């Protein structure tokens, strides 16, 4: 699964379709992105997560050559975006779906791009059918809803059959069917070996979609790994347990934990106990030894949302803005 790149007489093998190397962007009075380095692999869906104003869009724009980095560089398929011979055939991108000429129709918006690279009209019609706008070709962009614009943006990104997709908040404005369709589409394309880099605020949606994750906070990358590695590294699995006689179980746990009881055991509603730092087998055996009937025992993994929240709260030291 490696791509050979011929560059100045050298053959370089790359597996990372997008490579950000110390990307930094300073505006005259603020820092948008500070020393962001990460890689996005092919054949995988990579999520790009961070709070508002953390530099997600700026980073994407730097990768796409729209914003000039103060220092550092970004490579797509081994070369800067500007040096790609036919950019849309390598990278499809969706940055801002509302950036359309209101007087042009949905079809003519795509046609303007297609005439540039001699992409046949049938391809446009096929894409419009794919994104569910087959009968909307003649609609003016000013009359299109946000969801339609988002679908048009997706069609635009796919127009050149690119190997890399860079999508900024593509799920905004899509209806539930649209979101499911879009998720399956991205997963299928990743399965075909394409590299998909997608930013979003919708954590639960992202956890269903992505394989890898890049988390950015105040312009600094705080995590870049696969979702499963991230879960292993940061998760703090805890047990959810309920016994026939909860007070006996609580007494047992109090004996075990003594003064740290309050840190490790908490009461959830409906007579449910939450126990941290132990595995299910230990608790089951403990209950069995003491003749306590366990009626419910579950291991609760942290969701992406919880890991994300933890990362956002802990890493104040990495915060470039707090120094200012």
């Amino acid at each position, binding site marked *: 699964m490696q791509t050979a790149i011929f560059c100045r007489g050298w053959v370089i093998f790359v597996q990372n379709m997008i490579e950000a190397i110390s990307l930094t962007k300073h505006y005259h009075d603020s820092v948008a992105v500070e020393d962001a380095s990460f890689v996005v692999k092919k054949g995988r869906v990579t999520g790009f997560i961070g709070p508002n104003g953390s530099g997600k869009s700026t980073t994407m724009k730097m990768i796409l050559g729209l914003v000039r980095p103060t220092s550092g560089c970004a490579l797509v398929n081994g070369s800067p975006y500007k040096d790609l*011979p036919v950019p849309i055939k390598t990278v499809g991108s969706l940055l801002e779906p509302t950036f359309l000429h209101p007087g*042009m129709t949905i079809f003519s918006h795509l*046609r303007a*791009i297609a005439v540039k690279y001699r992409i046949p009209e049938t391809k446009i019609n096929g894409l419009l059918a794919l994104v569910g706008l087959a009968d909307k070709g003649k609609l003016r962009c000013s009359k299109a809803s946000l969801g339609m614009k988002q679908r048009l943006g997706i069609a*635009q990104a796919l127009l050149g059959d690119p190997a890399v997709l860079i999508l900024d908040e593509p799920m905004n404005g899509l209806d539930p069917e649209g979101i499911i369709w879009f998720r399956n589409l991205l997963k299928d394309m990743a399965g075909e070996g394409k590299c998909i880099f997608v930013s979003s605020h919708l954590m639960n949606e992202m956890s269903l979609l992505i394989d890898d994750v890049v988390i950015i906070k105040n312009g600094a990358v705080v995590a870049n790994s696969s979702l499963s590695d991230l879960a292993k590294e940061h998760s703090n699995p805890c047990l959810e347990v309920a016994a026939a006689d909860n007070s006996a179980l609580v007494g047992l746990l109090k004996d075990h934990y003594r003064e740290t009881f309050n840190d490790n055991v908490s009461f959830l509603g409906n007579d449910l106990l939450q126990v941290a730092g132990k595995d299910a087998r230990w608790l089951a055996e403990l209950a069995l030894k003491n003749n306590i009937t366990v009626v419910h025992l579950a291991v609760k993994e942290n969701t992406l949302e919880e890991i994300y929240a933890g990362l956002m709260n802990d890493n104040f030291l990495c915060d470039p803005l707090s120094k200012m």
Partner: protein
Amino acid sequence: MGRNFLRAAKARPHFVGYLNACRCELYKIKSTRSSYVTVFFSALAIVGLSVAVCTLYSVRSDHLSLYRLAATDPVFLSLSGTFLAQLGVVVFAVLSVTNEYGYGTIVTSLLLEPKRIRFALAKITVVVCVILLSSLLSLTAAFVFGERILSAKFHVIGMTSFTAVRTVVGAALYLSALGAICGGLSLIIRRTSGAIAAVFAILLVVPLIASLLPAPWDTDITRYLPSSAGVVLVHASHPANMMSPAASLLLLLFYSCVCIAGGLYFICRRDG
């Protein structure tokens, strides 16, 4: 065709890339309504004003003094629509650039064509070519109609004379240069209102202020303004205190180059 195209693309990738960018820009212009409105307004202004002015002159020629009759330049009368057409040309050229910024489509355009100089040059080329073609057609029509209306009362020169070709082509080149100047300035200013204000300041306000200056500064400055170059180019006779038609064309070329160079500098330097 595909194989030939590939071969050509290998031989001159920059030129082919530039042509592709031009095709994209032409399609954008063709698929927006405002470009039709402004280009047709210019054409209508050129023909309409010419017919109106020439008709008025031929009707009122008996009332004019001999001196005024001798001073009347029939070529200028039939091409006078050029100055009304400026309005349409300026709006067309400015909008074709500033709409990209206003609607944010500049992002898509720069994603499609990350080589910004190529994008900007393609845009200005297409705008100038559209203006040149449409104004050549309408100016020729205006010239023919105007001469026909005036021929009863004035001495007219006919379409085939050198002066006729010079003035018609000159007027078209003046409007095209105006398009290039607008394109360059719009890349610098990026806002429709600001760019149109700047262009009309150059075309209308600066000449007015220059004319207020004490002699000989007024004529010394006025002769180097782009609007004066336009006045020279549409006259068969040579207006007093003005440059020659050839020098006027060079002056317009100079202004166009300066504005385009400024535009290219700013589009490369700024973030998209």
